[in-house]
């Protein structure tokens, strides 16, 4: 076993579970994810000479994996396009307004009291690919906005706006999940979310 292969095995192959999890989030299919993981490591092995020693090997593999996924999507003509306006603050406000509405009905406390793990995994799978990618990289894999932007090959602002929209959508899905479980609060949060709430102006005590 030569040094290059030994180093590849020690550094890159140990990241296989992380890459497999990331590939699963991209493809939403076990068999497609396994194909993508294999393709990722083949590309990584072929290009290992270009890897800078000391760099973040997991991020490098995620980047290769994402590029390979995009190439597959392009081949299959299934590229999901989305608009990315500079609406990150609006998405944050939307999430907070959703929380305000949930507070009124007591839904937020209920959501905090139940196991939402399965619901979150389902909700993430239902997101469109760009949003799923952003929330997976930042919230599930723990990357910074800058690191996620490098993996996704988009500007930091794009990752941020996609991430915030994904979080708002996921939060709404969680509230729906809680209602489906039988929560019988007072308010219809879908309606009240659209109402003007106290955050549109400074509180009197500020």
């Amino acid at each position, binding site marked *: 076993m030569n040094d290059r292969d030994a180093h590849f095995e020690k550094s890159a*192959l140990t990241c296989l579970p992380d890459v497999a999890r990331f590939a699963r989030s991209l493809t939403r299919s076990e068999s497609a994810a396994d194909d993508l993981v294999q393709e990722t*490591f083949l590309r990584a*092995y072929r290009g290992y000479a270009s890897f800078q020693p000391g760099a973040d090997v997991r991020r490098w593999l995620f980047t290769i994996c994402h590029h390979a996924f995009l190439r597959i999507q392009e081949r299959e003509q299934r590229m999901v396009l989305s608009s990315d306006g500079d609406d990150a603050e609006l998405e944050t406000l939307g*999430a907070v307004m959703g*929380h305000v509405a949930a507070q009124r009905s007591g839904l937020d406390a209920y959501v905090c009291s139940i196991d939402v793990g399965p619901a979150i995994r389902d909700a993430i799978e239902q997101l469109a690919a760009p949003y799923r990618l952003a929330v997976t990289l930042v919230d599930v894999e723990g990357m*910074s906005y800058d690191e996620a932007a490098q993996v996704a090959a988009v500007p930091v602002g794009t990752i941020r706006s996609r991430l915030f929209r994904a979080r708002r959508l996921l939060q709404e899905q969680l509230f729906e999940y809680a209602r489906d479980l039988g929560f019988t609060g007072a308010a219809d949060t879908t309606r009240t979310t659209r109402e003007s709430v106290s955050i549109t102006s400074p*509180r009197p005590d*500020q």
Partner: protein
Amino acid sequence: MTTMTRAESEPIDCRTAVQRLWDYLDGELDAVRLAEVTAHVERCAACDEHVQFARTFLTALSASRADVADATALRSRVVSALQREGFSSSWRVR
């Protein structure tokens, strides 16, 4: 060089504070904006509740990570493919 301390940061209103909510929790704010949000949240119970809920939500997101059930089988498959490219491994393919 003048460094703005937390005490020197400008008061912000609730709308501004919640607009920065995700950046605040993600550690993506600069020092001045971080100080402004921190100071606001400390004195505003309503915004503090939003922060606490958002923090719980992000913790749940992070905890939702589902590891691949059989990474060993997948690793064997990947190593086999790599070996066809000339890779030599100490890993015994099953």
